[in-house]
């Protein structure tokens, strides 16, 4: 395999290390689920999700512009640099936006852009937090009514919540793998250096590796920042995030799990009539929403120009 694929693997690793927090972060940071259990489940189901439903996303990213092995490498590198820079600046960064930004940068240099694909992707970015908010609002309404009919007592409620949190986490890991694998190896598939199954497997495994090796710190810090809510709200937030990300995996557009969970928490806040996220956090999310693809595009343009590629 071409060593330049390692750029994608590195990106997948950082994605896994960061986004595992959006899957089991709340459950682990509040000791509802053990870290070990959480990362093992995340790793397994990310790979399964990637293999089973990762292809539509890979097709979409591939349709924006043609790739060569060099441009694919630069897209991955530009995305990795963007994620690093935005993380240092403490912005809630989306790897999907960074990758698409990188692809757009290369497309601009090539002057070959499939605008319909770009439009589809951007529309889905808008739909991620808003969709997650709507889904969590509806889920909260439905589940609270459903749960009340079971007449659970204190200890069974506790058990049911814990187990449902694990089930929701597993589903979310599956959705993460299915949705985000395209970010990792989509460009390499488009460049023709990987067949579909290799792209899905390598992408899924890279994300799983990140979750297994380097997600602990992020999980504890980000997990606590996300939801200072009760177990039921945490469950609804993760479930809404998973459904949102899964829907976009089916549509074939990689989106951000961070934006999905923030949207989900806002939706719960609307339902309960309380403010769950500060205005400052929302401002930073919006800023990152615009900045991430722009920075990704700038990096890939710079890398392309430095390498003096022949477009």
């Amino acid at each position, binding site marked *: 395999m071409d060593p330049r694929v390692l750029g994608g693997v590195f990106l997948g690793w950082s994605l896994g290390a960061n986004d595992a927090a959006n899957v089991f972060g709340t459950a682990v940071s509040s000791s509802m689920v053990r870290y070990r259990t959480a990362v093992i489940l995340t790793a397994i189901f990310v790979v399964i999700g990637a293999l089973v439903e990762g292809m539509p996303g890979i097709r979409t990213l591939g349709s924006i512009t043609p790739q060569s092995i060099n441009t694919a490498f630069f897209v991955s590198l530009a995305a990795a640099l963007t994620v690093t820079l935005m993380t240092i600046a403490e912005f809630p960064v989306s790897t999907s936006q960074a990758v698409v930004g990188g692809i757009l940068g290369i497309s601009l240099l090539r002057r070959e852009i499939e605008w319909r694909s770009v439009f589809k992707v951007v529309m889905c970015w808008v739909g991620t937090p808003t969709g997650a908010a709507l889904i969590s609002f509806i889920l909260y309404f439905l589940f609270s009514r459903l749960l009340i009919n079971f007449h659970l007592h*204190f200890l069974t409620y506790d058990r049911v919540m*814990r187990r449902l949190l694990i089930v929701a986490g597993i589903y979310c890991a599956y959705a993460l793998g299915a949705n985000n694998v395209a970010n990792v190896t989509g460009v390499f598939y488009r460049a023709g250096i990987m067949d579909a199954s290799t792209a899905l497997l390598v992408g899924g495994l890279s994300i799983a590796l990140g979750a297994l090796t380097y997600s602990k710190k992020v999980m504890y810090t980000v997990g606590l920042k996300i939801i200072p809510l*009760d177990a039921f709200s945490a469950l609804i937030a993760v479930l809404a995030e998973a459904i949102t990300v899964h829907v976009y995996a089916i549509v074939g557009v990689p989106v951000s799990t961070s934006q999905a969970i923030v949207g989900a928490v806002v939706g719960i806040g609307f339902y309960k009539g309380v403010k769950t996220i500060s205005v400052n956090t929302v401002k930073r999310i919006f800023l990152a929403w615009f900045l991430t693809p722009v920075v990704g595009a700038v990096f890939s343009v710079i890398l392309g120009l430095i390498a003096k590629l022949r477009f």
Partner: protein
Amino acid sequence: MVWMIGKKHPLRSMLERYLKKSEECIVNFKEALENYFEKGLGREFDELIEKTHIAESLADDIRREVELTLYEKALIPESRGDILGLLESTDKVLNKAQSVLYQIQSELLQLPEFLKEDFRKLVDINIGAFKDVTRAIRALFRDLREVRDITNEIDKRESASDHLERELIKKIFISELSVGEKILLKELVLETGNISDLSQAVGDRLNIITAKRMI
């Protein structure tokens, strides 16, 4: 659904042991006061105080055992905090009952005949409030919907206790007793009434615990 709910939780039997021991403590408290009403201060009263103290200490031991189990058997943090808070507030009721007996013993209080009937009623109301607490806690582990009805009964008993406390204090201060005796007896009435106040605090906590799970 069985895989979701699982087997009977070990915590449940421990909590049942705690509740039984708490009830034993409050029964001993009642016996001690009955003995005091009939025979006044004496060796029998002291022995019953000791019996109450032993039951309270054993309930304390079980409470600590439960606290350890809460961490070992890992309930979700929300439930853990709820149980810890619930047991601590229940323990305060038992401590109060015990301190009422110590107050009588250490201050060598003599209860005048004209107060005995009302004081008996006051004790019964307050013991009833605590018994409702144990009923409500049991309901928490059986059916959450029952909890609210029982805590409403605790509220009613607390109001009745407040009313009777005021009546008793009035009777004390109208009487010919010395000022010192009046003050000591007033304190005894208020301390006894605190049992239902603290029971009501447990009831409030139970209502919050239930409301959180009834979404």
